């Protein structure tokens, strides 16, 4: 992080440091109204969700041999559900789940 004095703090979209792995100043999980839910039985690891996700929220866990979803950054665009070849991915309403609560203490 930059060492910015409190009174000179710039709001979001002014300046954010380049992310290494994840971008802690731009958490987008709270944009989501629907989420993709995966059925690992049906998944044939075609990698379409990994390739098409605009935010890189799907990754392959090679040890477990399954794709893993990132709830912290998924915006719920459902591109992965559209691109899934085996109908292993389906959309579900966010309020049906207890998990996936993503809050920014200071909004932007």
């Amino acid at each position, binding site marked *: 992080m930059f060492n910015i004095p409190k009174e000179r703090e710039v*709001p979001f979209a002014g300046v954010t440091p380049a992310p290494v792995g994840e971008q802690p100043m731009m958490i987008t999980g*709270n*944009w*989501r109204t629907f989420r993709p839910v995966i059925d690992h039985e049906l998944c044939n690891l075609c990698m379409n969700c990994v390739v098409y996700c605009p935010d890189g929220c799907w990754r392959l866990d090679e040890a477990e041999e399954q794709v893993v979803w990132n709830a912290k950054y998924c915006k719920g665009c459902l591109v992965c559900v559209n691109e899934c070849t085996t109908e292993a991915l389906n959309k579900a309403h966010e*309020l049906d789940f207890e998990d996936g609560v993503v*809050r920014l*203490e200071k*909004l932007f």
Partner: protein
Amino acid sequence: MAHVHEITVWTRGVVKDKEGRDVAQALAQAADKEGKYVQAFDNYVDLPDRVNVPVRKYARISDQEIEMRYDYENERPEVVVVVDATMVKGVNVLRGMAQGGVLVVNTDRKPEDILKFVPNKELLKAVACVDADGIAGTATVDFSGTEGGVDAVGLGAGIAAPLLGAVARATGLVTLDSLAEVVKNAPALRRGYDEVMVHSLN
């Protein structure tokens, strides 16, 4: 300075942006018709021109002149309206609220299902749930009225109308009759007033 009733509306960018703005604008205009001093404005910090991003709209109602200069956010909201229920998972919507506030949510679910995601729910005096999507149909996706443009659709043509009815019932800040003068979809407004489920807490 007299007490200023601060109303914060949480909504989602682009898809429900106009609905959120309509709630704030119509509350202010209805209170204006009752002779109150009012303000209504958008939050510019939220960058609303992205789909689904959390954005805020503000309204202020007071019996005397509002002397809050250079205050562009409602720091202590008394009433919080949530236009998309899933936002309670993503944002601490009650931030800054003093004891005894009111939360109005657009949802067809039970208040318990919403309150389990609200971390500081002990601040609330009441929570009101209204199925605005079911009453008024889908949200109007429209850019008219944005950033000073002419509002061709009019206030409260979509889901804002039943939400406004719910706010009138749950808070009593404005009367239903003065809201009916400014809202375009008056039947939906009255249905929201009648069908809202207000649960008192504490």
